[in-house]
Protein backbone atom coordinates (compact mmCIF):
# COMPACT_ATOMS: atom_id res chain seq x y z
CA UNK A 1 0.00 0.00 0.00
CA UNK A 2 2.73 2.42 1.06
CA UNK A 3 4.77 1.33 -1.94
CA UNK A 4 1.86 2.05 -4.25
CA UNK A 5 1.37 5.50 -2.75
CA UNK A 6 5.07 6.17 -3.11
CA UNK A 7 5.02 5.17 -6.75
CA UNK A 8 1.93 7.31 -7.35
CA UNK A 9 3.59 10.29 -5.68
CA UNK A 10 6.80 9.77 -7.58
CA UNK A 11 5.07 9.56 -10.93
CA UNK A 12 2.98 12.66 -10.14
CA UNK A 13 6.11 14.61 -9.26
CA UNK A 14 7.82 13.32 -12.36
CA UNK A 15 4.90 14.42 -14.54
CA UNK A 16 4.80 17.85 -12.92
CA UNK A 17 8.54 18.25 -13.41
CA UNK A 18 8.27 17.23 -17.07
CA UNK A 19 5.46 19.74 -17.61
CA UNK A 20 7.54 22.45 -16.00
CA UNK A 21 10.52 21.60 -18.19
CA UNK A 22 8.28 21.61 -21.26
CA UNK A 23 6.93 25.09 -20.47
CA UNK A 24 10.37 26.57 -19.78
CA UNK A 25 11.66 24.91 -22.93
CA UNK A 26 8.85 26.45 -24.99
CA UNK A 27 9.56 29.91 -23.57
CA UNK A 28 13.25 29.62 -24.37
CA UNK A 29 12.52 28.45 -27.91
CA UNK A 30 10.01 31.22 -28.52
CA UNK A 31 12.52 33.77 -27.29
CA UNK A 32 15.01 32.45 -29.79
CA UNK A 33 12.67 32.34 -32.74
CA UNK A 34 13.25 36.01 -33.57
CA UNK A 35 16.29 34.80 -35.45
CA UNK A 36 14.00 33.18 -38.01
CA UNK A 37 13.08 36.61 -39.34
CA UNK A 38 16.75 37.21 -40.06
CA UNK A 39 17.22 33.78 -41.60
CA UNK A 40 13.98 32.72 -43.31
CA UNK A 41 15.88 30.02 -45.18
CA UNK A 42 15.92 27.87 -42.05
CA UNK A 43 12.14 28.06 -41.79
CA UNK A 44 11.60 27.33 -45.47
CA UNK A 45 13.81 24.25 -45.21
CA UNK A 46 11.84 22.91 -42.25
CA UNK A 47 8.49 23.79 -43.83
CA UNK A 48 9.54 21.55 -46.67
CA UNK A 49 10.30 18.53 -44.52
CA UNK A 50 7.47 19.08 -42.04
CA UNK A 51 4.80 20.37 -44.40
CA UNK A 52 5.46 19.46 -48.00
CA UNK A 53 6.49 15.90 -47.27
CA UNK A 54 3.25 15.40 -45.31
CA UNK A 55 1.16 16.46 -48.31
CA UNK A 56 0.70 13.04 -49.83
CA UNK A 57 -0.96 11.47 -46.81
CA UNK A 58 -3.09 14.59 -46.28
CA UNK A 59 -4.26 14.71 -49.89
CA UNK A 60 -5.14 11.03 -50.06
CA UNK A 61 -6.85 10.97 -46.67
CA UNK A 62 -8.77 14.17 -47.36
CA UNK A 63 -10.10 12.80 -50.59
CA UNK A 64 -11.22 9.51 -49.07
CA UNK A 65 -12.70 11.01 -45.92
CA UNK A 66 -14.81 13.31 -48.11
CA UNK A 67 -15.88 10.42 -50.31
CA UNK A 68 -16.89 8.24 -47.37
CA UNK A 69 -18.74 11.11 -45.68
CA UNK A 70 -20.70 11.69 -48.85
CA UNK A 71 -21.61 8.03 -49.17
CA UNK A 72 -22.76 7.64 -45.59
CA UNK A 73 -24.53 11.01 -45.57
CA UNK A 74 -26.34 10.17 -48.78
CA UNK A 75 -27.78 6.90 -47.44
CA UNK A 76 -29.17 8.70 -44.40
CA UNK A 77 -30.36 11.88 -46.09
CA UNK A 78 -31.98 10.18 -49.10
CA UNK A 79 -34.59 8.60 -46.80
CA UNK A 80 -35.81 12.09 -45.96
CA UNK A 81 -35.40 13.41 -49.50
CA UNK A 82 -32.77 15.80 -48.23
CA UNK A 83 -29.81 14.65 -50.31
CA UNK A 84 -29.32 18.21 -51.65
CA UNK A 85 -28.00 19.10 -48.20
CA UNK A 86 -25.15 16.66 -48.63
CA UNK A 87 -22.75 19.47 -49.52
CA UNK A 88 -23.58 21.32 -46.31
CA UNK A 89 -23.22 18.20 -44.20
CA UNK A 90 -19.81 17.38 -45.61
CA UNK A 91 -18.52 20.95 -45.58
CA UNK A 92 -19.59 21.59 -41.99
CA UNK A 93 -18.22 18.27 -40.73
CA UNK A 94 -14.91 18.95 -42.43
CA UNK A 95 -14.35 22.60 -41.61
CA UNK A 96 -15.52 22.38 -38.01
CA UNK A 97 -14.22 19.03 -36.82
CA UNK A 98 -12.79 16.45 -39.15
CA UNK A 99 -10.44 18.73 -41.04
CA UNK A 100 -8.48 20.10 -38.07
CA UNK A 101 -8.63 16.91 -36.00
CA UNK A 102 -7.80 14.31 -38.63
CA UNK A 103 -5.09 16.51 -40.11
CA UNK A 104 -3.55 16.95 -36.65
CA UNK A 105 -3.66 13.20 -36.00
CA UNK A 106 -2.08 12.44 -39.36
CA UNK A 107 0.45 15.19 -38.78
CA UNK A 108 1.43 13.69 -35.44
CA UNK A 109 1.96 10.32 -37.07
CA UNK A 110 3.88 11.56 -40.08
CA UNK A 111 5.69 14.78 -39.10
CA UNK A 112 5.60 14.77 -35.29
CA UNK A 113 7.18 11.35 -34.97
CA UNK A 114 9.82 12.30 -37.54
CA UNK A 115 10.66 15.48 -35.65
CA UNK A 116 11.03 13.66 -32.34
CA UNK A 117 13.16 10.92 -33.83
CA UNK A 118 15.37 13.38 -35.67
CA UNK A 119 16.00 15.61 -32.65
CA UNK A 120 16.36 12.60 -30.34
CA UNK A 121 18.98 11.06 -32.60
CA UNK A 122 20.82 14.36 -32.86
CA UNK A 123 20.92 14.37 -29.08
CA UNK A 124 22.00 10.74 -28.82
CA UNK A 125 24.86 11.28 -31.27
CA UNK A 126 26.03 14.42 -29.42
CA UNK A 127 25.23 16.64 -32.39
CA UNK A 128 23.28 19.02 -30.15
CA UNK A 129 26.07 19.13 -27.57
CA UNK A 130 28.55 19.67 -30.38
CA UNK A 131 26.51 22.58 -31.66
CA UNK A 132 26.43 24.12 -28.20
CA UNK A 133 30.18 23.92 -27.99
CA UNK A 134 30.42 25.63 -31.37
CA UNK A 135 28.57 28.49 -29.69
CA UNK A 136 25.41 27.77 -31.67
CA UNK A 137 22.33 27.43 -29.51
CA UNK A 138 20.46 24.31 -30.65
CA UNK A 139 17.23 25.65 -29.19
CA UNK A 140 17.44 28.54 -31.63
CA UNK A 141 19.08 26.82 -34.57
CA UNK A 142 17.41 23.39 -34.50
CA UNK A 143 14.24 23.61 -32.42
CA UNK A 144 12.80 27.05 -33.21
CA UNK A 145 12.55 26.59 -36.99
CA UNK A 146 11.00 23.15 -36.56
CA UNK A 147 8.40 24.38 -34.10
CA UNK A 148 7.55 27.38 -36.27
CA UNK A 149 7.28 25.13 -39.31
CA UNK A 150 4.84 22.85 -37.47
CA UNK A 151 2.70 25.77 -36.32
CA UNK A 152 2.57 27.25 -39.82
CA UNK A 153 2.16 23.97 -41.70
CA UNK A 154 -0.76 22.47 -39.84
CA UNK A 155 -3.35 25.17 -40.74
CA UNK A 156 -2.20 25.07 -44.36
CA UNK A 157 -2.47 21.29 -44.44
CA UNK A 158 -5.92 21.54 -42.83
CA UNK A 159 -7.10 23.86 -45.59
CA UNK A 160 -5.82 21.45 -48.20
CA UNK A 161 -7.47 18.54 -46.39
CA UNK A 162 -10.81 20.40 -46.35
CA UNK A 163 -10.63 21.32 -50.01
CA UNK A 164 -9.80 17.77 -51.01
CA UNK A 165 -12.54 16.43 -48.73
CA UNK A 166 -15.17 18.60 -50.36
CA UNK A 167 -13.86 17.64 -53.77
CA UNK A 168 -14.11 13.97 -52.85
CA UNK A 169 -17.67 14.43 -51.63
CA UNK A 170 -18.57 16.25 -54.83
CA UNK A 171 -17.10 13.46 -56.93
CA UNK A 172 -19.13 10.82 -55.14
CA UNK A 173 -22.43 12.63 -54.63
CA UNK A 174 -22.76 14.53 -57.90
CA UNK A 175 -20.95 12.25 -60.32
CA UNK A 176 -21.72 8.89 -58.76
CA UNK A 177 -24.97 9.18 -56.79
CA UNK A 178 -26.68 11.73 -59.00
CA UNK A 179 -27.19 14.55 -56.50
CA UNK A 180 -27.89 17.86 -58.21
CA UNK A 181 -24.64 19.78 -58.54
CA UNK A 182 -26.28 23.20 -58.35
CA UNK A 183 -27.96 22.59 -55.03
CA UNK A 184 -24.87 20.82 -53.69
CA UNK A 185 -22.78 23.96 -54.10
CA UNK A 186 -25.43 26.62 -53.48
CA UNK A 187 -26.60 25.12 -50.20
CA UNK A 188 -23.04 24.77 -49.08
CA UNK A 189 -22.39 28.39 -49.96
CA UNK A 190 -25.38 29.70 -48.07
CA UNK A 191 -25.09 27.50 -44.98
CA UNK A 192 -21.37 27.54 -44.29
CA UNK A 193 -20.29 30.75 -42.62
CA UNK A 194 -16.74 31.97 -43.06
CA UNK A 195 -16.37 33.50 -39.62
CA UNK A 196 -18.15 30.78 -37.63
CA UNK A 197 -17.15 27.63 -39.40
CA UNK A 198 -14.06 28.12 -41.49
CA UNK A 199 -12.29 30.58 -39.21
CA UNK A 200 -13.03 28.61 -36.05
CA UNK A 201 -11.74 25.50 -37.77
CA UNK A 202 -8.55 27.34 -38.66
CA UNK A 203 -8.13 28.61 -35.10
CA UNK A 204 -8.41 25.02 -33.96
CA UNK A 205 -5.77 23.90 -36.40
CA UNK A 206 -3.37 26.64 -35.26
CA UNK A 207 -3.82 25.47 -31.67
CA UNK A 208 -3.27 21.87 -32.75
CA UNK A 209 -0.16 23.00 -34.62
CA UNK A 210 1.25 24.54 -31.45
CA UNK A 211 0.41 21.41 -29.44
CA UNK A 212 1.69 18.91 -32.02
CA UNK A 213 4.87 20.86 -32.71
CA UNK A 214 5.61 21.55 -29.07
CA UNK A 215 5.11 17.93 -27.99
CA UNK A 216 7.20 16.63 -30.88
CA UNK A 217 10.22 18.88 -30.38
CA UNK A 218 10.11 18.67 -26.61
CA UNK A 219 9.98 14.87 -26.59
CA UNK A 220 12.95 14.75 -28.93
CA UNK A 221 14.93 17.26 -26.91
CA UNK A 222 14.07 15.72 -23.55
CA UNK A 223 14.47 12.04 -24.46
CA UNK A 224 17.02 9.72 -22.93
CA UNK A 225 19.88 9.66 -25.43
CA UNK A 226 19.72 5.93 -26.13
CA UNK A 227 18.05 3.94 -28.89
CA UNK A 228 15.35 2.81 -26.49
CA UNK A 229 14.88 6.36 -25.22
CA UNK A 230 14.43 7.72 -28.74
CA UNK A 231 11.95 5.01 -29.68
CA UNK A 232 9.91 5.64 -26.53
CA UNK A 233 9.94 9.37 -27.12
CA UNK A 234 8.70 8.88 -30.68
CA UNK A 235 5.83 6.69 -29.53
CA UNK A 236 5.01 9.12 -26.76
CA UNK A 237 4.83 11.98 -29.24
CA UNK A 238 2.18 10.23 -31.33
CA UNK A 239 0.13 9.00 -28.36
CA UNK A 240 0.23 12.21 -26.32
CA UNK A 241 -0.42 14.45 -29.32
CA UNK A 242 -3.41 12.37 -30.39
CA UNK A 243 -4.94 12.36 -26.92
CA UNK A 244 -4.39 16.06 -26.33
CA UNK A 245 -5.70 16.99 -29.76
CA UNK A 246 -8.90 15.01 -29.14
CA UNK A 247 -9.37 16.46 -25.66
CA UNK A 248 -8.56 19.99 -26.76
CA UNK A 249 -10.93 19.64 -29.69
CA UNK A 250 -13.79 18.87 -27.33
CA UNK A 251 -13.01 21.94 -25.21
CA UNK A 252 -12.65 24.21 -28.23
CA UNK A 253 -15.87 22.92 -29.80
CA UNK A 254 -17.73 23.56 -26.56
CA UNK A 255 -16.38 27.10 -26.46
CA UNK A 256 -16.78 27.94 -30.16
CA UNK A 257 -20.09 26.47 -31.26
CA UNK A 258 -23.17 26.89 -29.15
Amino acid at each position, binding site marked *: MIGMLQRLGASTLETAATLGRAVLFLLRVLRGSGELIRRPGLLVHEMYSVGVLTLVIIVVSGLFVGMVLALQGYYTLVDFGAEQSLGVLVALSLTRELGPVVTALLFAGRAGSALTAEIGLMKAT*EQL*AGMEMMAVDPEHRVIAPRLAAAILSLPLLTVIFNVLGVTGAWLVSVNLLGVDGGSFWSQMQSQVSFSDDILNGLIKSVMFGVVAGWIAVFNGYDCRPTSHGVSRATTRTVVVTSLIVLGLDFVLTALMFD
Partner: protein
Amino acid sequence: MPWRILQHSSRIDISEAIRMPTTESEALIDLSGVVFSRGSNRLFNGVDLQVRRGEVVAIMGPSGTGKTTLLRLIGGQLRAAAGRVAVDGQAVDQLSRRDLYRLRRRMGVLFQSGALFTDMTCFENVAFPLREHTDLPETLIRTVVLMKLEAVGLRGARDLYPGELSGGMSRRVSLARALALDPEIILYDEPFAGQDPISMGALMQLIRQLNDALGLTSVVVSHDVDETLRIADRAYVISGGEVIAAGTPEALRHSESRWVDQFLNALPDGPVPFHYPAPPIADDLCGEGR
Protein backbone atom coordinates in the same frame (compact mmCIF):
# COMPACT_ATOMS: atom_id res chain seq x y z
CA MET B 1 33.35 42.24 -45.67
CA PRO B 2 37.04 41.92 -46.43
CA TRP B 3 38.17 43.94 -43.41
CA ARG B 4 36.62 41.37 -41.13
CA ILE B 5 38.52 38.60 -42.75
CA LEU B 6 41.75 40.48 -42.50
CA GLN B 7 41.13 41.19 -38.87
CA HIS B 8 40.19 37.59 -38.31
CA SER B 9 43.22 36.01 -39.90
CA SER B 10 45.69 38.57 -38.67
CA ARG B 11 44.59 37.90 -35.10
CA ILE B 12 46.37 34.59 -35.05
CA ASP B 13 49.60 35.73 -36.62
CA ILE B 14 50.06 38.83 -34.52
CA SER B 15 49.03 37.27 -31.26
CA GLU B 16 51.21 34.34 -32.11
CA ALA B 17 54.20 36.63 -32.41
CA ILE B 18 53.49 38.84 -29.43
CA ARG B 19 51.68 36.67 -26.96
CA MET B 20 53.67 33.54 -26.67
CA PRO B 21 56.88 34.69 -25.01
CA THR B 22 55.33 37.18 -22.61
CA THR B 23 52.46 35.16 -21.23
CA GLU B 24 53.90 31.71 -21.25
CA SER B 25 53.37 31.05 -17.58
CA GLU B 26 49.84 32.40 -17.43
CA ALA B 27 47.16 29.76 -16.87
CA LEU B 28 44.65 29.91 -19.69
CA ILE B 29 42.46 27.27 -18.10
CA ASP B 30 42.40 27.26 -14.35
CA LEU B 31 40.42 24.82 -12.21
CA SER B 32 40.71 25.16 -8.46
CA GLY B 33 38.94 23.11 -5.83
CA VAL B 34 36.32 21.88 -8.28
CA VAL B 35 33.62 19.71 -6.75
CA PHE B 36 31.06 18.00 -8.91
CA SER B 37 28.53 15.25 -8.22
CA ARG B 38 26.31 13.26 -10.50
CA GLY B 39 23.38 12.02 -8.46
CA SER B 40 24.84 10.54 -5.29
CA ASN B 41 28.13 9.83 -7.02
CA ARG B 42 30.76 12.44 -6.24
CA LEU B 43 32.90 12.63 -9.36
CA PHE B 44 35.27 15.42 -8.34
CA ASN B 45 36.29 16.21 -4.84
CA GLY B 46 38.42 19.29 -5.14
CA VAL B 47 40.28 19.08 -8.43
CA ASP B 48 43.06 21.60 -9.12
CA LEU B 49 44.35 21.82 -12.66
CA GLN B 50 46.08 24.49 -14.71
CA VAL B 51 46.71 24.67 -18.43
CA ARG B 52 49.10 27.30 -19.67
CA ARG B 53 49.00 28.92 -23.07
CA GLY B 54 50.61 26.94 -25.84
CA GLU B 55 50.75 23.68 -23.93
CA VAL B 56 49.43 20.26 -24.72
CA VAL B 57 48.13 18.98 -21.41
CA ALA B 58 46.93 15.43 -20.96
CA ILE B 59 44.28 14.44 -18.45
CA MET B 60 44.39 10.74 -17.80
CA GLY B 61 42.57 8.33 -15.61
CA PRO B 62 40.59 5.12 -15.76
CA SER B 63 37.17 5.02 -17.44
CA GLY B 64 34.42 6.45 -15.31
CA THR B 65 36.56 9.00 -13.48
CA GLY B 66 34.71 11.81 -15.18
CA LYS B 67 37.29 12.96 -17.69
CA THR B 68 34.62 13.91 -20.19
CA THR B 69 32.73 15.67 -17.42
CA LEU B 70 35.84 17.72 -16.80
CA LEU B 71 35.80 18.93 -20.40
CA ARG B 72 32.13 19.78 -20.09
CA LEU B 73 32.90 21.82 -16.99
CA ILE B 74 35.57 23.74 -18.91
CA GLY B 75 33.17 24.29 -21.81
CA GLY B 76 30.47 25.53 -19.44
CA GLN B 77 27.99 22.78 -20.31
CA LEU B 78 27.99 21.67 -16.68
CA ARG B 79 28.39 23.73 -13.55
CA ALA B 80 30.61 22.82 -10.65
CA ALA B 81 28.96 22.53 -7.22
CA ALA B 82 31.93 24.29 -5.66
CA GLY B 83 35.28 25.65 -6.70
CA ARG B 84 36.23 27.76 -9.66
CA VAL B 85 36.51 26.98 -13.36
CA ALA B 86 38.12 29.85 -15.22
CA VAL B 87 39.09 30.19 -18.85
CA ASP B 88 41.26 33.17 -19.71
CA GLY B 89 40.46 34.71 -16.34
CA GLN B 90 36.67 34.42 -16.77
CA ALA B 91 34.77 32.21 -14.34
CA VAL B 92 32.87 30.00 -16.77
CA ASP B 93 29.93 29.23 -14.49
CA GLN B 94 29.27 32.88 -13.71
CA LEU B 95 29.17 34.09 -17.30
CA SER B 96 25.92 35.18 -18.86
CA ARG B 97 24.69 32.97 -21.67
CA ARG B 98 25.87 35.51 -24.19
CA ASP B 99 29.36 35.80 -22.75
CA LEU B 100 29.59 32.03 -22.43
CA TYR B 101 28.75 31.64 -26.10
CA ARG B 102 31.31 34.29 -26.96
CA LEU B 103 33.91 32.39 -24.97
CA ARG B 104 32.98 29.13 -26.65
CA ARG B 105 33.80 30.62 -30.03
CA ARG B 106 37.39 30.65 -28.85
CA MET B 107 37.27 26.93 -28.03
CA GLY B 108 37.07 23.93 -30.27
CA VAL B 109 35.92 20.59 -28.96
CA LEU B 110 36.62 17.24 -30.51
CA PHE B 111 33.96 14.89 -29.20
CA GLN B 112 34.66 11.23 -28.75
CA SER B 113 31.97 10.35 -31.27
CA GLY B 114 33.02 13.12 -33.63
CA ALA B 115 29.53 14.62 -33.28
CA LEU B 116 29.44 15.40 -36.98
CA PHE B 117 26.09 16.34 -38.46
CA THR B 118 25.12 13.12 -40.16
CA ASP B 119 22.95 14.75 -42.81
CA MET B 120 25.63 17.11 -44.08
CA THR B 121 28.70 16.35 -46.15
CA CYS B 122 32.14 16.86 -44.64
CA PHE B 123 32.35 20.16 -46.46
CA GLU B 124 29.06 21.37 -45.02
CA ASN B 125 30.07 20.20 -41.56
CA VAL B 126 33.24 22.26 -41.59
CA ALA B 127 31.42 25.20 -43.13
CA PHE B 128 28.72 25.11 -40.45
CA PRO B 129 30.43 27.24 -37.76
CA LEU B 130 31.60 29.71 -40.41
CA ARG B 131 28.09 30.11 -41.77
CA GLU B 132 26.67 30.52 -38.27
CA HIS B 133 29.16 33.03 -36.97
CA THR B 134 30.47 34.99 -39.93
CA ASP B 135 29.10 36.81 -42.96
CA LEU B 136 31.83 35.54 -45.23
CA PRO B 137 30.90 35.17 -48.89
CA GLU B 138 30.54 31.67 -50.24
CA THR B 139 33.82 31.75 -52.18
CA LEU B 140 35.78 32.54 -49.03
CA ILE B 141 33.95 29.92 -47.01
CA ARG B 142 34.97 27.43 -49.65
CA THR B 143 38.59 28.51 -49.41
CA VAL B 144 38.64 28.32 -45.62
CA VAL B 145 36.88 24.95 -45.51
CA LEU B 146 39.22 23.43 -48.07
CA MET B 147 42.23 24.73 -46.17
CA LYS B 148 40.99 23.23 -42.91
CA LEU B 149 40.25 19.93 -44.59
CA GLU B 150 43.68 20.03 -46.22
CA ALA B 151 45.24 20.49 -42.79
CA VAL B 152 43.75 17.19 -41.65
CA GLY B 153 44.46 15.53 -44.99
CA LEU B 154 40.85 15.06 -46.04
CA ARG B 155 40.34 17.65 -48.76
CA GLY B 156 39.51 14.80 -51.10
CA ALA B 157 36.75 13.53 -48.81
CA ARG B 158 34.80 16.76 -48.79
CA ASP B 159 31.74 15.38 -50.56
CA LEU B 160 31.42 12.27 -48.40
CA TYR B 161 28.85 11.96 -45.65
CA PRO B 162 29.99 11.11 -42.10
CA GLY B 163 28.45 7.66 -42.47
CA GLU B 164 30.88 6.92 -45.29
CA LEU B 165 33.97 7.75 -43.22
CA SER B 166 36.03 5.50 -40.99
CA GLY B 167 36.21 6.35 -37.30
CA GLY B 168 39.62 7.96 -37.64
CA MET B 169 38.56 10.00 -40.64
CA SER B 170 35.44 11.33 -38.99
CA ARG B 171 37.50 12.44 -36.01
CA ARG B 172 39.79 14.29 -38.36
CA VAL B 173 36.84 16.00 -40.06
CA SER B 174 35.55 16.88 -36.65
CA LEU B 175 38.95 18.35 -35.88
CA ALA B 176 38.80 20.42 -39.05
CA ARG B 177 35.41 21.69 -37.97
CA ALA B 178 36.72 22.53 -34.50
CA LEU B 179 39.49 24.52 -36.17
CA ALA B 180 37.17 26.36 -38.54
CA LEU B 181 36.86 29.49 -36.42
CA ASP B 182 40.57 29.54 -35.51
CA PRO B 183 40.08 28.80 -31.81
CA GLU B 184 42.70 29.39 -29.15
CA ILE B 185 41.88 26.27 -27.18
CA ILE B 186 41.08 22.78 -28.36
CA LEU B 187 39.62 20.16 -26.07
CA TYR B 188 40.05 16.57 -27.21
CA ASP B 189 37.77 13.93 -25.70
CA GLU B 190 39.38 10.50 -26.04
CA PRO B 191 40.83 11.19 -29.48
CA PHE B 192 42.57 7.80 -29.69
CA ALA B 193 39.83 5.50 -28.39
CA GLY B 194 39.11 2.69 -30.83
CA GLN B 195 41.58 3.82 -33.48
CA ASP B 196 43.82 1.60 -35.53
CA PRO B 197 47.57 2.28 -35.20
CA ILE B 198 47.77 4.31 -38.42
CA SER B 199 44.84 6.60 -37.56
CA MET B 200 46.24 6.91 -34.08
CA GLY B 201 49.60 7.99 -35.41
CA ALA B 202 47.94 10.49 -37.73
CA LEU B 203 45.88 11.97 -34.92
CA MET B 204 48.86 12.19 -32.57
CA GLN B 205 50.88 14.01 -35.15
CA LEU B 206 47.97 16.35 -35.94
CA ILE B 207 47.35 17.28 -32.33
CA ARG B 208 50.99 18.13 -31.69
CA GLN B 209 51.64 19.87 -35.00
CA LEU B 210 48.46 21.93 -35.00
CA ASN B 211 49.14 23.00 -31.47
CA ASP B 212 52.61 24.23 -32.31
CA ALA B 213 51.89 25.62 -35.75
CA LEU B 214 48.74 27.53 -34.85
CA GLY B 215 49.77 28.52 -31.33
CA LEU B 216 46.86 26.62 -29.79
CA THR B 217 46.42 25.35 -26.30
CA SER B 218 45.30 21.74 -26.19
CA VAL B 219 43.73 19.60 -23.52
CA VAL B 220 43.71 15.90 -24.31
CA VAL B 221 41.55 13.65 -22.21
CA SER B 222 42.52 10.05 -22.70
CA HIS B 223 43.31 6.73 -21.16
CA ASP B 224 45.72 5.73 -23.88
CA VAL B 225 48.81 6.24 -21.79
CA ASP B 226 51.68 5.80 -24.22
CA GLU B 227 50.20 7.83 -27.04
CA THR B 228 49.07 10.64 -24.82
CA LEU B 229 52.29 10.93 -22.90
CA ARG B 230 54.29 11.03 -26.10
CA ILE B 231 52.65 14.25 -27.29
CA ALA B 232 51.87 15.95 -23.97
CA ASP B 233 53.94 18.67 -22.34
CA ARG B 234 52.40 17.91 -18.99
CA ALA B 235 49.91 15.39 -17.69
CA TYR B 236 47.45 15.08 -14.85
CA VAL B 237 46.31 11.73 -13.55
CA ILE B 238 42.87 11.73 -11.96
CA SER B 239 41.32 9.05 -9.83
CA GLY B 240 38.71 8.93 -7.11
CA GLY B 241 37.74 12.52 -7.75
CA GLU B 242 41.18 13.96 -7.15
CA VAL B 243 44.34 14.72 -9.03
CA ILE B 244 46.74 12.10 -7.77
CA ALA B 245 49.73 12.95 -9.89
CA ALA B 246 50.79 15.78 -12.14
CA GLY B 247 53.90 16.71 -14.02
CA THR B 248 55.86 16.11 -17.17
CA PRO B 249 55.54 12.68 -18.76
CA GLU B 250 59.09 11.91 -17.62
CA ALA B 251 58.31 12.77 -14.01
CA LEU B 252 55.15 10.66 -14.07
CA ARG B 253 57.02 7.65 -15.39
CA HIS B 254 59.34 7.84 -12.41
CA SER B 255 56.54 8.49 -9.94
CA GLU B 256 56.74 6.76 -6.56
CA SER B 257 52.99 6.35 -6.40
CA ARG B 258 51.81 2.73 -6.66
CA TRP B 259 48.63 3.95 -8.22
CA VAL B 260 50.38 5.83 -11.01
CA ASP B 261 52.60 2.83 -11.52
CA GLN B 262 49.56 0.59 -11.90
CA PHE B 263 47.91 2.97 -14.35
CA LEU B 264 50.92 3.71 -16.52
CA ASN B 265 52.01 0.10 -16.67
CA ALA B 266 48.53 -1.33 -17.14
CA LEU B 267 48.64 -3.73 -14.19
CA PRO B 268 45.29 -5.49 -13.71
CA ASP B 269 45.27 -5.39 -9.91
CA GLY B 270 46.65 -2.95 -7.41
CA PRO B 271 45.37 0.13 -5.62
CA VAL B 272 42.56 0.09 -8.18
CA PRO B 273 41.01 -3.31 -7.45
CA PHE B 274 40.16 -5.77 -10.19
CA HIS B 275 36.82 -6.51 -8.53
CA TYR B 276 33.90 -4.14 -8.32
CA PRO B 277 32.92 -3.86 -4.62
CA ALA B 278 30.78 -6.86 -3.64
CA PRO B 279 30.03 -9.00 -0.58
CA PRO B 280 32.35 -12.02 -0.12
CA ILE B 281 31.79 -14.61 -2.82
CA ALA B 282 31.00 -17.35 -0.28
CA ASP B 283 28.06 -15.28 1.04
CA ASP B 284 26.84 -14.62 -2.45
CA LEU B 285 26.97 -18.21 -3.62
CA CYS B 286 25.78 -19.99 -0.48
CA GLY B 287 23.94 -17.21 1.35
CA GLU B 288 20.40 -15.89 1.31
CA GLY B 289 20.16 -14.81 -2.29
CA ARG B 290 20.45 -18.41 -3.46
